């Protein structure tokens, strides 16, 4: 499993549109992608799961990528979220 953390920079947090972007990106991965805020986790391929975490601007979340291609997929996801979320 590969883990990395990032801070949400979008002003209103991980709401519908950024959550949608993340789902789209996570869906490309063959790995299982989990997002964690505090003690709550969600499946990053499911939009309601992500929105349910109510992640706000400035909050730090952890992504966990687990699968055969976890290394490269985690790297791609990390690049994507730093740029877009």
């Amino acid at each position, binding site marked *: 499993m590969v883990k990395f953390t990032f801070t949400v*920079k979008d002003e209103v*947090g991980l709401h*519908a549109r950024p959550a949608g972007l993340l789902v789209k990106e996570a869906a490309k991965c063959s790995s299982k992608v989990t997002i964690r805020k505090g003690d709550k986790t969600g499946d990053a391929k*499911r939009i*309601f799961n992500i929105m349910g975490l*109510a992640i706000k601007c400035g909050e730090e979340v952890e992504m966990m990528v687990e699968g055969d291609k976890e290394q490269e997929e985690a790297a791609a996801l990390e690049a994507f979220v730093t740029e877009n979320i």
Partner: protein
Amino acid sequence: MKVYHGKAVFHGIAIGQIQILKKEEKNVFRSHIDNVEQEITRMERAVSETEEQLKKLYDKALLEVGESGAAIFEVHQMMLQDQDYQESILNIIRTQQVNAEYAVAVTADNFANMFAMMDDAYMKERAADVKDISERLISVLSQEDKEEVQTDMPTIIVAEDLSPSETVQMDKSKVRSFVTRYGSSNSHTAILARTMNVPALIGLAYDEDIDGMTAVVDGFKGELIVDPDPEVLAEYEKKAAQEEEKRQLLQELKGKETVTLGGKEIRLYANIGGISDLQSVMQNDAAGIGLFRSEFLYLEKEDYPTEDEQFKVYRSVAETMAGKKVIIRTLDIGADKQIDYFKLEREDNPAMGYRAIRICLTRIDIFKTQLRALYRASAYGNIGIMFPMIISVREVKRIKEIVEEVKKELTDNGIAYGEVELGIMIETPAAVMISRQLAEEVDFFSIGTNDLTQYTLAIDRQNAKLDDFYDAHHPAILNMIQMVIENGHKGGAWVGICGELGADLELTDQFIEMGIDELSVSPSCILPIRKKIREHV
């Protein structure tokens, strides 16, 4: 006559008949199902049909309100495809042996409640999205078309609030205005009104009994005037006719080329001072952005904006303009614009003081941060950069050295960037006099006529006592423009005007004859100038 007050989110005058949209409460009945698998197949078909509808809505919205407005329908598709959402529906059908409509309604309530219970105002509103897709799904299941608004006379749509589906599906040919009780300046209603170019009011507490009455929407004052007195109505009819004339011009000229009768194309670009101006750039059909003042990025902040903050803004402008030219001017501030954290000393004569490129060339860190952000954004669109307040070739050479350093750093770090045209503002008499040499160094010139006039005539535009001495069409200025165009062309640089003079309709013909390549003006001036250029023999 009764006057209601709201907040105008888009200007204009509209007269029409009020139509109040009421949300119909759909009653979903719970019924027992014997053949569960058959019900699930019915459910799966409905999901794919709903998805088709959402795709069509996305395409329609893309044309009508652009990508950011349409994105909500893409999110709706994801919500519809969400595994938890679908599993919940299927589980309810299976375990309770009930009809799909009921299962959707229960699931919608559960998910909407999850959002409604969040302590985040923005997230609370997402409950509406869940309801919107669920209602659509139920309509498909029960073979009902979602009711479309149809009218045959000019209509003012009045509603509590309008959902994205409602606004996009509406037959908009007769709609003259939107009025809602709720909503914000960023709500779907506001975006739609701007795109349709019709006035819209929000936060207006109307009474239910105004349905069907004649009314006036004054999108300047933020008023809804129901059953207006004859003289008030007459006055507004006159105003509306004037507005309509403007609108006609807009419609006629939108999408047309900016070409003279002789076949010369003039690039007609827009001047903007922030992201919020982009809407009117699109509305007025500018061919690009000729002057994007980057100062707002600095003025809005308490501290220097970071590279990432700037990059995001530049990238979003480049992406919104989708391949059209976006010329961003680097920081142009001085002692006359107060930015505390720059800690600029007071000066007696700030117009001729430590400002613009002079700050950038002495505080290279600030300059490089902006350049790095600009170059990174250039990978996402067609970006040009221009530098203000140039008086010497040496300055331009120094700028180009710094640009090369920035490009090298990016390359070394494996960060992508695109082709960027580099240009300078011609706004000092010095730059005019050496424009032949400067042209060899850059891709383009943009003549900043406001400062150029002030520096050439030695007249402070803020000083009203000097109005009698001031002549906007002074031959000195016009000769300078002619000289800059000729020298620019000799050195292989294209030449534009981004100052106020560029929008002066009395001079358009003359500029064309001088050989101008580009005019950059405020968005609302674009179409009248396009008309003028198209009539030029």
